[in-house]
């Protein structure tokens, strides 16, 4: 199988280049991550992040034949040759397929992704009905891989001001939590022309999310809450 992989080693390369690789032995069921690990045995200077190999740690997000995804969940059998592998778009490249995620995490921290409760805590758990808890499904599963935010044109244009789909999904995860008591504060934090309202419902985020989550729906729900809060 043939691969074209984005290479950039700042100590050696003046500019990025695409390098061709060939992998002879392809076993059935092999994922892209398995292939990259095999290629690394040929060439240990080829660098990418990875860890759990089953789509829960969120390390190996990359751009695969033009679409963002996790290497460990991408079967080789679905890929057209040569498989073109690039780093996530729209954020700085550190080396090869490794990107600098600081901007992404800055926005994550900025939505204050933690439960805020003002009332005294009970000596046991807060009660939450299964229906209330169900509202968190599709939100709490985010693995912070960055596929969505780096696929978002609005983020490419305003990476410093637009929170991006991943952070906005997190914002809604806490707004949707029946235990959280900071709704107004959270909504106020998202006002203004950029932080959330740069979303133009292009829905790239939904198409690429490896966990099948829907940040666009979360953003719409935040807008609804804003209207409700105004009334």
């Amino acid at each position, binding site marked *: 199988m043939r691969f074209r992989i984005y290479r950039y080693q700042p100590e*050696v390369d003046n500019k990025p280049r695409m390098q061709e690789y060939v992998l002879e032995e392809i076993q059935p069921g092999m994922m892209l991550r398995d292939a990259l690990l095999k290629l690394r045995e040929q060439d*240990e200077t080829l660098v990418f992040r990875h860890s759990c190999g089953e789509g829960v740690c969120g390390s190996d997000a990359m751009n695969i034949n033009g679409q963002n995804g996790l290497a460990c969940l991408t079967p080789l059998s679905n890929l057209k040759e040569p498989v073109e592998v690039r780093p996530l778009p729209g954020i700085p490249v550190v080396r090869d397929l490794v990107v600098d995620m600081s901007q992404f995490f800055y926005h994550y921290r900025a939505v204050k992704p933690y*439960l805020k409760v003002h009332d005294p805590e009970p000596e046991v758990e807060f*009660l*939450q009905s299964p229906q209330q808890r169900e509202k968190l499904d599709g939100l709490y599963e985010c693995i912070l891989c960055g596929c969505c935010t780096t696929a978002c044109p609005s983020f490419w244009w305003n990476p410093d001001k637009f929170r991006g789909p991943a952070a906005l999904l997190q914002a809604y995860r806490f707004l949707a939590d029946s235990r959280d008591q900071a709704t107004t504060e959270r909504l106020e934090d998202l006002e203004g022309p950029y932080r959330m309202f740069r979303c133009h419902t292009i829905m790239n985020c939904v198409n690429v999310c490896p966990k099948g989550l829907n940040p666009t729906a979360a953003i719409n729900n935040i807008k609804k809450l804003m209207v409700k809060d105004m009334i």
Partner: protein
Amino acid sequence: MDGTVTDVGVQPVTLARRQFDSLVIGAGGGGLRAALQLATADANVAVVSKVFPTRSHTVAAQGGINAALANVLPDNWHWHMYDTIKGSDYLGDQDAIEYMCRSASHLVYELEHAGVPFSRLDDGKIYQRPFGGQSQNFGGEQAARTCAAADRTGHAMLHTLYQQNIHAKTHFFDEYFAIDLIKDDEGFVLGALVLEIETGKPLLIEAKTTLIATGGAGQLFRTNTNARINTGDGMGMALRAGIPLQDMEFFQFHPTGVAGRGMLLTEGARGEGGYLINKDGERFMERYAPHAKDLASRDVVSRAISTEVREGRGCGPDGEYVLLKLDHLGRDVLQKRLPGISDTIRTFLHIDPAEEPVPVFPTAHYTMGGIPTNRHGQVVVPIDQGEEVIPGLYAAGECACVSVHGANRLGGNSLLDIVVFGRAAGNDIIEYLSNNRYHRRLDEASVDKAVDHLQRWDLQGEGESVANLRNELQLTMEKYCGVFRTEVVLAEGIEKVLELQQRMADVRLQDHSRIFNTARIEAMELENLFDIAVATVVSAHARQESRGAHSRIDYPERDDVHWLKHSLYYKRDRRLDYKPVTLKPISVESFPPKERVY
């Protein structure tokens, strides 16, 4: 060693240094829980992690966390304590186990208050499911003690703990690799030399206390449920600092890894009503554990599966696995309670668990052994007739051995272990800091030694490759130190592992760049794995009995007369020492060893 060392600019004079009250190495659940305790107590804390915190392996824990909340069935912490001691095959220390089980409810409520999205019961309380080895009333009916967020409990906990640390403004060093501990002549641990992966620059972090929370070493074995990062770095560092590792012969094989691949399928699958069948469609666990059946302890179920396959009752064309039947649970339960493993099964096996049974086989999962600590998280080593504390050094979680898991850990007790002892260590560190207000003088010789260790990887030339040796090590461990063991096979295993380790001297990296050089990191991870592999086979070879996960065909019985004791392995001369099991709990009566049946 031959070859030339190039200048990598790590001369001690130019070595960057930072000072903190407290250093935490590892950002899984244990490290983050401790850091939270420290940050909220206004200690100046640095968390060093070789991956971004939410990539730590706690994220992969599925089934849940044990606490006797009694939300579903009657329960209390004392029953949980009994089950844990029995599960440990009586090798667990009963004071630590009492402490853990007593604290469990409080810690789970605390996690819930912090935001963990636990699944819920109709009355709004935390959902609890049955798990292996759980009973009511000291060995009676099945209990339901495992608090769950669907089958993504580790993910839910790790993200919440990270979020709380963001709130507490903990200082994170993301993607820094810890190389070695810094220790002075008097035995005080003073911090660690770490490497910033992005720049390739070493950094000396001086700290009054250092907590090792680096997780387990599942990468010892070829087929494992563990992430690639689980290379036991903290255990390796401890060994090199002269600290022994305890009970390393006890390595847990999880009964239900995806056959041939290793991905974890939670015990919660059986807790929700799934069960195992052999090629005859027989529910074979009824033969091995008539009472608990599929919810017997993990060691029991793993041995049963291995036995079925060895005796020719395995499934598939080569009879290499058994089947986990889930289809009778229905799509709704699978979607609501087991969505994560349903995805994994679809993605990696291309089958629908609601339609077909799933091929599974025991898979390397959890390191019961580790750095010896007491229940305050302090690292302790034997001296004369007792024990002494290594001043300034702590360990918590899978890298530590308190020991609450003894010879076999119960499912749902590892997420509990990390928060209970992460917090306990945090509390003890706060006390230590109030009695030790100033940084001690740094031991430069110790710093030089750590720098030399790093520089070794700048040797150039042709040589062995890390990937090759790692593959050989994993195969060797699987073959010579697996579920069933014998004297002859283990002796051969020691020889093979030592031979492989010697070849480490001939390894040369091809990548000598500084920026995000993962080859260098993998080389140092492999060094750690080798030290731990030797500790594991040597300890396993010495223990002439079968207890918990350590199954000796040549010594099939547990031998409390000679072996009711913890092993301690020292790197120097590969020496073994032993210490007694603490059979005396803190406040209740001891549970004396008795026959263990499920």
